[in-house]
């Protein structure tokens, strides 16, 4: 299998409002190779969930894709009719959402939902699907899987529900999984378990993962590559180790510096001045320039494109090229 599994090129998503169209995603481009875990990291409003939704074809109207291309396995999928998109979803592209409570239908048992998903995407009869479901639950780390088939979502804890959701996402044996903040609603201790599970299962099946999160810690321990988003644009992309320890974009560096860790002295947290721009107030040129300590006049006029800087690609006129950030 040559070439990337998923290619996103200059994706633009806008929301028409009475004040004109709001660009929520503005020229987003990245690739995911087969078997790779790509992290999409950014703060609220950066557009990362929108990117995931656009790829899976679940953009909520009035939002719409207004530019760019999405290619899955070489075929364009952003202009597919809804029926074809539905077939693609679940079978080739699986999705895991943030809130496990709402991802599962509370009125049906876990077993029912699993079997239904399996039989929709794979040619199995009821008994085979049931066996498969038990196996999936077991691989998802749920003890006493067979007994659990008849239970309902509310009888599970948050962490277990998320495991079931992961099992459901993997049921159709998809080649790409979009995971939108899968651990945010979980406790720290349970997060570690779920992340390990996700990583293990996808490595086994060879699926690629697009992991959307705001938690850099999760990115660091799960992903192969990471794309940093800010105000609807990708500002840096590269191997995880390079982006975290040698960021080239000032935003990435500032973001890393503001993450509380056990390693530093525990005095004052480094903070970024100002606030994330609202979608209707995105500055001209580089979106980050009002908050950037290195901004120059060019930054306010011309928008930088992603360009290779050492080991990562960063969209910055003055990338940081020497040494690791604080």
């Amino acid at each position, binding site marked *: 299998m040559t070439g990337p599994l998923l290619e996103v090129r200059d994706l633009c998503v806008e929301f028409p409002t009475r004040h004109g169209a709001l660009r929520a995603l503005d020229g987003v481009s990245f690739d995911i190779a087969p078997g790779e875990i790509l992290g999409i990291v950014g*703060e*609220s409003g950066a557009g990362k969930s929108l990117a995931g939704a656009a790829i899976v074809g679940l953009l909520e109207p009035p939002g719409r894709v207004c530019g760019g291309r999405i290619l899955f396995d070489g075929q364009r999928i952003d202009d597919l009719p809804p029926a074809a998109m539905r077939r693609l979803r679940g079978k080739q592209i699986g999705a895991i959402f943030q809130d496990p409570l709402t991802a599962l239908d509370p009125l049906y048992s876990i077993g029912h939902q699993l079997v239904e998903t399996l039989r929709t995407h794979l040619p199995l009869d009821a008994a085979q699907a049931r066996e498969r479901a038990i196996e999936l639950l077991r691989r998802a780390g749920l003890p006493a899987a067979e007994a659990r088939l008849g239970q309902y979502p509310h009888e599970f*804890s948050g*962490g*277990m529900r998320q495991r079931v959701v992961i099992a459901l996402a993997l049921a159709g044996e998809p080649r790409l999984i979009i995971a939108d903040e899968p651990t945010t609603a979980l*406790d*720290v*201790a*349970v*997060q*570690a*378990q779920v992340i*390990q599970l996700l990583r293990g299962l996808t490595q086994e099946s060879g699926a690629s993962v697009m992991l959307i999160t*705001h*938690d*850099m*810690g*999760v*990115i*660091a*321990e799960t992903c192969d590559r990471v794309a940093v988003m800010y105000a609807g644009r990708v500002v840096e992309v590269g191997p995880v180790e390079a982006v*975290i*320890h040698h960021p080239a974009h000032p935003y990435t560096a*500032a*973001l*890393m510096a*503001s*993450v*509380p*860790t*056990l*390693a530093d002295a*525990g*005095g*004052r*947290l*480094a*903070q*970024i001045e100002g*606030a*994330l721009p609202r979608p209707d107030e995105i500055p001209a040129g580089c979106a980050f320039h009002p908050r950037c300590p290195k901004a120059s006049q060019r930054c306010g006029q011309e928008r930088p494109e992603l360009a290779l800087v050492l080991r990562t690609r960063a969209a910055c006129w003055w990338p940081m090229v020497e040494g690791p950030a604080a």
Partner: protein
Amino acid sequence: MSARDAADGAGRADAGTAWVEARGLGRTFTLDTPWTDRLLRRTGARQVHAVDDVSFTIARGRTLALVGESGCGKSTLARLMVGLDVPTRGSAWLAGADVRATLGGAPDAARAMRRRMQMIFQDPFASLNPRWRIGDIVAEPLLEQGLILPAQAAERVAALLAAVGLRGADVRRFPHQFSGGQRQRISIARAISTRPEFLVCDEPTSSLDVSVQAQVLNLMVDLQRERALTCLFISHNLVVVRYVADDVGVMYLGRLVELAPKPEIFHAPRHPYTRMLLAAVPDPRARERPRAPVIGEMPDPLAPPAGCAFHPRCPHANARCRDERPALLPSGAVQVACHAVEEGRL
């Protein structure tokens, strides 16, 4: 009582008086079971011990952080400390007076007590009335407690907003026009408006983005230092607590399992649960990964394990742990509720 004296000792590094105190606080919630169930199936009234015999002290001007996962009772404890809820056992004390008794007693004393306490809540969306302008929201405590005249309100509010980094022109806007981080700042402005002496912060940064969290935490640390506030800081994130706390307490299923000064907790955690929490913390810049695996999940609070609540998940549990509930005992400068530590096995 030796445990309480020991609590006094561990809660301060210097010889300050116990300004804020929790004495054997307990809060039990009884769930409604239909009488048919109770009759036919003989299920007793189900109870959740959200807070179970918690004692600690905070010296004046210091910050105690309480850490634990969701469901461990820390929010309930926060409400008990400011009198928003009535304890089923024990009592909360502020400046030598029983909080609940004072609030329910003479109006003057109650008002004086209320003026000393304030709270910052977790959800920036639900903690501000969506129908009120933020100028009114920030001014409400001042006006309600009769600390200023309505005519002076505008000026005071402008000063408070400036103190938290918001513009004076924002006074007429509504909460939904602000971001989560800005809303927390408004909450902070409201909380410090009456110049309280005791501030309870219930997970104030949990719903905020990383960079916003940094701003808000820095702001809170600055304000606390400027105004010499005594703080109770509740969080599920052990790492965040490092930047704001002087002492740290760890809670599990409503019980306090460890209470220690900050350096001790992070460099020499005693209780197995504390160690587990620390090991589970994600550190993006740590070179060694993955994190240590965490065993099991929080048990159902309706059916807590017998003996030590943590024993099903503890690698060091023995028979005694299954039968006997450990008491919070001093171990050096630290208090730990663990048989293994007491017996010297850890």
